[in-house]
């Protein structure tokens, strides 16, 4: 039989039992649509997360002190206090580190922020003026911390939006006084709201001059009297200069710390964070797909079930065809092509339904998050291939049973 005739014969056989074929098809349609739409939602979430991190600036490097060790017990990364403000600004020397565009050291601590009877416990970040550009945190009202405030250890604070709302409601907090860790601070500005995602953390934080954070709020200090920092955010001139920048930073710090063996600092990039997150979210996407895949498997079992029933019902037809000269291969091909047609047809419709579903879901809000979907052609192709394979896999056994029938017994079947 020619492939086209086989196709037509299969189509007409399936058409003879429309409801049954339709329901079997539906099993695959639902399975494929589930795979497509769940993968689209998963990929959408992945893209949202990646985009969020990328919005921090991909040209960023983070320099952190190494781990401290006390009596053989190693603390976590960044626990040592080996990185100072002077180290940070040494990195801006164009002679030693030409790839570095700007540095923004930070020192994090926590504190109770109190104003007019209200209070909130929050992260207090000690920063320098470059911070707003390097970490991309513009002020909405008022102004950012200045160098003179850093030099004078001024007790001034820039509030994150949510902190400002908690303490002052919708009043403009600029010029008001808050108490942090028992000290009076003047509010000089409010950060722009960053919304959801990683950047949204800034809404819940307050920024103070790094010197103030160190001398007035933080508990640890160095013996030399230099300001300790936890992280130095380094902005690199271009994405292509990242590797050079890492080398330059390492050279400068090794020189300053007189290191010959083990570094007492680490340099990491945003890219690494993105990669790590992508790996994590990939697992999540594959997991979603696998769950949806179960329904595809169930659809496949449905095909097998129907094909077995169909072979039994059409035993006589098989006998007639064999008497007329159909070989085993012809019968096998006939039933396999029926199963494959079901699964491929279901796959095609499922891709369409999945596409429609992911379009509908796109932009819907779920709690305070907006769902984003990313429909991708590769998943559609994969789903089609998988459904064809399912048709073959679950169709081959019933088809084999049909092909094996003896013509006389098949003809005698009532």
């Amino acid at each position, binding site marked *: *039989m*020619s492939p086209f*005739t086989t196709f037509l*014969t299969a189509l*007409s*056989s399936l058409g*003879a039992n429309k409801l049954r074929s339709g329901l079997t098809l539906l099993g695959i349609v639902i399975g494929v649509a589930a795979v497509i739409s769940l993968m689209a939602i998963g990929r959408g979430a992945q893209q949202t997360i990646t985009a969020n991190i990328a919005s921090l600036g991909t040209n960023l490097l983070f320099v952190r002190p190494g781990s401290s060790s006390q009596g053989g017990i190693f603390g976590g990364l960044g626990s040592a206090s080996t990185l100072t403000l002077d180290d940070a600004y040494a990195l801006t020397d164009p002679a030693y580190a030409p790839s570095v565009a700007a540095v923004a050291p930070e020192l994090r601590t926590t504190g109770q922020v109190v104003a007019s009877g209200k209070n909130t416990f929050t992260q207090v970040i000690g920063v320098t003026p470059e911070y707003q550009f390097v970490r991309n945190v513009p002020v909405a009202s008022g102004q950012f911390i200045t160098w003179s405030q850093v030099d004078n250890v001024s007790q001034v604070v820039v509030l994150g939006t949510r902190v400002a709302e908690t303490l002052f409601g919708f009043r403009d907090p600029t010029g008001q006084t808050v108490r942090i860790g028992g000290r009076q601070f003047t509010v000089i500005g409010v950060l722009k709201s960053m919304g959801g995602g990683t950047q949204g953390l800034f809404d819940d934080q307050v920024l103070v001059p790094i010197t103030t954070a160190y001398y007035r709020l933080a508990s640890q200090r160095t013996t030399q009297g230099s300001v300790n920092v936890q992280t130095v955010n380094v902005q690199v001139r271009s994405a292509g200069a990242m590797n050079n920048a890492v080398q330059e930073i390492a050279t400068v710090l090794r020189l300053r710390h007189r290191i010959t063996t083990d570094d007492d600092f680490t340099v990491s990039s945003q890219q690494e964070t993105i990669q790590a997150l992508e790996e994590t979210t990939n697992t999540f996407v594959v997991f979603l797909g696998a769950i949806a895949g179960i329904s595809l498997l169930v659809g496949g079992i449905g095909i097998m079930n129907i094909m077995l029933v169909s072979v039994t019902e059409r035993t*006589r*037809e098989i*006998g*007639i*065809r*064999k*008497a*007329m*000269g*159909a*070989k*085993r*291969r*012809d019968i096998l091909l006939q039933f396999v092509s029926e199963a494959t047609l079901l699964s491929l047809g279901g796959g095609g419709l499922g891709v369409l339904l999945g596409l429609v579903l992911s379009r509908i879901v796109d932009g819907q809000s779920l709690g305070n998050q907006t769902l984003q979907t990313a429909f991708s052609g590769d998943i559609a192709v994969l789903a089609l291939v998988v459904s064809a394979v399912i048709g073959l896999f679950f169709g081959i056994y019933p088809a084999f049973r049909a092909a094996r029938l003896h*013509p*006389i017994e098949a*003809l005698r079947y009532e």
Partner: protein
Amino acid sequence: MIEIENVIKVYRMGKVEVRALQGVSLAIKPGEMVAIMGPSGSGKSTMMNVIGCLDAPTSGRYILEGQEVGRLGDDRLAEIRNRKIGFVFQTYNLLPRLTALGNVEVPLLYGNGRDRRRRALEALERVGLGPRAHHRPAELSGGEQQRVGIARALVKDPSILMADEPTGNLDSRSSYEIIGILQRLNREEGLTVVMVTHEPDIAAHTRRVVSMRDGRLVSDEPVREPRDALAQSVGKEGTAP
């Protein structure tokens, strides 16, 4: 030319061995019209299946047109059925989903199947069913369905037409029509017809009657004056065969 030599066919039904053919020898020349008769269980159906290449003999030789076919595998037998043998069944065995034309096309799907539509229509016209080509079996009378069955058997121009109780489900008028067609094909086109029947009246239309009992041939006699079905269906309309 059909040559069967000392054919034995043993079936296993669970643990019981059924000796359906116990050493049968028979030769049928091209252009013959033979009836195989016998009570049920006589082995005539098994004989039919062996001659029709639906089943291989357990032992003995079967030479069809000079080719030993008794030892061939399933797929080779299917090929021979497709090219050389046309089947007509008691219950017609048409596919209910397909039209008359579609049913006649079935043998053309396997093996060489060019010009399917035209060849199937020609075959239907040979049995006088051209105008009914696009009707489904359910829309046709028993006699018409059997004529579709004959057209399907003819469509590949076989050398042998095997008919298993072709009139068993028909009234007398339709029976004579069917037998008339078979006679005409045999006389005018020289087609070899082998027919299994238990009705002596039907067998009387052939030119040779072979009788079987308990898996053996018990008689093999020519019919002196074969009856003419065409004359009967016109002349004695409605009488029982």
